[in-house]
């Protein structure tokens, strides 16, 4: 399936080429216009069906990039030092497999054996500054021949089926959104002007989305994401951010965006009309391309619609395929029915 291909593809922020190529080859015959801009965004347009008054322009954005690493230098022993790209928790890094650069050089993130650590050390998180990647190079020269400073790296996880009705893989944030957006393109054209945008560099500051929204100037925007799902067992009186299997998550407000209340209510009503479950993402947590899109140019009402994903930003995330399909259905339905009158203050 498309999601598998996208999840396995290599694409840390700023280096989305593999993913971009997969997306473009799948959609280019289905859209009326396709441009790749100077930040690497894939900006598409599908003309509105029918004639008449100026159609609504709806932008739907999903980001191509994933969190990852970037090689800073090789040391004399041939180990690669690295920085993180985007928000990775240092706790998940030790003893993971990675692939590096255009040559997809395999490597492992290493830490010293437990035997040589003190009890105090074992109680502390190892900073990524103190971790290195071993690519089996004998010395600095041999290492630099395989991987140059500035080469990008990501986890080497392969996509798989998991549990019951679930799938697991890396980069679900936001290849899941990309897969949703590709499906929405395939269900078009629509009675409105549809501008699907596959953005770059979301994980390092919503960079692609900002300039793409300047170019597109949408009337309304949807952001297709996979979002934090923290539904682990917990103390009472503490809710989950989102829960797996309970349908697409609608954002009310996050760190970068307060969603137009009428737009989010409209989407919830459409879910009920459609018979699709939906949930509200716990407010105040996380952020999406919506943070940039809604305030670019003269601004546009923007709604993130997300597939809940456990363990995002780690080498292995988990989503429910039912949530995934419901997200596609709900996004399509909202776009087909929304009018400016529904959301104007």
């Amino acid at each position, binding site marked *: 399936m498309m999601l598998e291909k996208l999840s396995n593809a*290599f694409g840390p*922020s*700023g*280096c989305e*080429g*593999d993913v*971009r*190529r997969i997306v473009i080859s799948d959609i280019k015959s289905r859209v009326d216009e396709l441009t*790749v*801009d*100077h*930040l*690497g*965004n894939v900006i598409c347009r599908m003309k509105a069906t029918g004639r008449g008054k100026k159609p609504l322009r709806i932008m739907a954005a999903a980001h191509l990039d994933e969190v990852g690493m*970037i*090689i*800073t*230098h090789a*040391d004399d022993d041939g180990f690669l*030092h*690295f*920085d*993180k*790209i*985007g928000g990775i928790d240092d706790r998940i890094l030790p003893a993971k497999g990675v692939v590096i*650069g*255009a*040559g997809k050089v395999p490597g492992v993130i290493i830490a010293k054996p437990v035997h040589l650590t003190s009890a105090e050390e074992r109680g502390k998180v190892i900073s990524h*500054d103190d971790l290195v990647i071993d690519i089996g190079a004998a010395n600095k020269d041999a290492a630099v021949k395989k991987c*140059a*400073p*500035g*080469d*990008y790296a990501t986890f080497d996880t392969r996509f798989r089926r998991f549990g019951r009705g679930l799938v697991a893989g890396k980069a679900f944030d936001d290849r899941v959104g990309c897969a949703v957006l590709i499906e929405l393109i395939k269900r078009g054209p629509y009675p409105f002007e549809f501008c699907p945008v596959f953005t*770059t*560099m979301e994980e*390092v*500051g919503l*960079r*692609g989305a*900002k*300039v*793409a929204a*300047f*170019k597109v100037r949408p009337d309304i925007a949807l952001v297709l994401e996979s979002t934090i799902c923290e539904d682990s067992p917990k103390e009472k009186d503490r809710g989950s951010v989102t829960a797996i299997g309970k349908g697409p998550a609608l954002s009310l407000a996050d760190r970068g965006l307060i969603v137009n209340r009428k737009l989010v209510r409209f989407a919830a009503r459409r879910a009920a009309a459609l018979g699709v479950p939906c949930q509200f993402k716990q407010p105040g947590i996380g952020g999406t391309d919506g943070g940039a899109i809604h305030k670019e140019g003269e601004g546009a009402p923007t709604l993130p619609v997300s597939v809940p994903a456990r363990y995002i930003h780690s080498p292995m995330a988990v989503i429910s395929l039912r949530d995934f399909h419901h997200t596609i259905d709900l996004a399509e339905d909202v776009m087909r029915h929304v009018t400016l009158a529904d959301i104007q203050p």
Partner: protein
Amino acid sequence: MKDEPMDVKALLKSLSEACGVSGYEDEVRGVIRQAFEPYCDEIRVDTMGNLIGLKKGSGKGGARRKRVMLAGHMDEIGLMVTEIDQGFIRFTQVGGYDTRVLPAQAVTVFGRERLPGIIASVPPHVSGSSDKSTPMDELYVDVGLSESQVNKLARVGDLITLDRPCVELSDDLLCGKAFDDRASVAAIVTCLEILSQTAHEWDVYAVATVQEEVGLRGATTGAFGIAPDLGIAIDVGFGKQPGVKEKFAIILGKGPALARGPNIHPKLFAGLKATAEKFEIPYQVEVTSGGTGTDANAIQLTRDGIPTGLISIPERNMHTPVETISIKDVERTGRLLACYIAGLDADTMGQFVWDDDNGGEK
């Protein structure tokens, strides 16, 4: 056009010693205007205060000839008076100092007249030994005048700069208060001087930006107004010294560092690197994992996106009054910029496509 070759060292000294705290860049702007004037066809100051020099290219296209924007910020970090307290001056900071460098520094308070002062430090005999640093709100400036004189001459909101004449540490190393980022401004002037004797097709917008240290503000509006086809920010990078991890360090005297990472268009990095190799200009590579804290960050995100590069001049002791740089690195940076710009032609933008090869340096 000037007949005499430019004296880079003298320019660096005058730039570093000029006052230009973020938002109040008037004095240094005057110095830079003089340095730009011999080489630019037009000079203007925009609403934010950016100094924009245009050196026209020979290419076709008239007013919409291809444009490259060079940005080096002219503002420096500094201090600002918050309160006159019994004849002593309390202050806050504009931009980011490590407050531990402040005690016992000489300063100038820009009051109704320039007042030489000292940031007071309580003698250890009185304060007792402590491993705690002194917070900024306990520091104050002594200008050695009576309370009534201070009240008359200094006001809340007056600027204070650390007062540090430029020192030559060696034949090549200069130490001064504001090489972040006046060193880059000097590199831009060097570039303009070389271009005054070299054919170039593209229009060059040499911009000394304002308010970089408080959030890349000048570059944001400067780039929007100019709408360049390519942008190159020049700033200082962390020079290797004790306490600076190797992953962040570039080495003084080994040439400008070319940045790689999401903020940098891979083709611009590749173009600068190829130019450095072709003209045998020593260079280093610096890795940045996201939006850089430089004008390159603002320029890239301007309008519908601008391919942007970043060149860093190695500097030790950043954000202290003893910022240290190599004159050779400044000259090499100017030469690299000039050689790259001279190579820009009508086909260049056609090369700014994504190979989708994962940015691997192959």
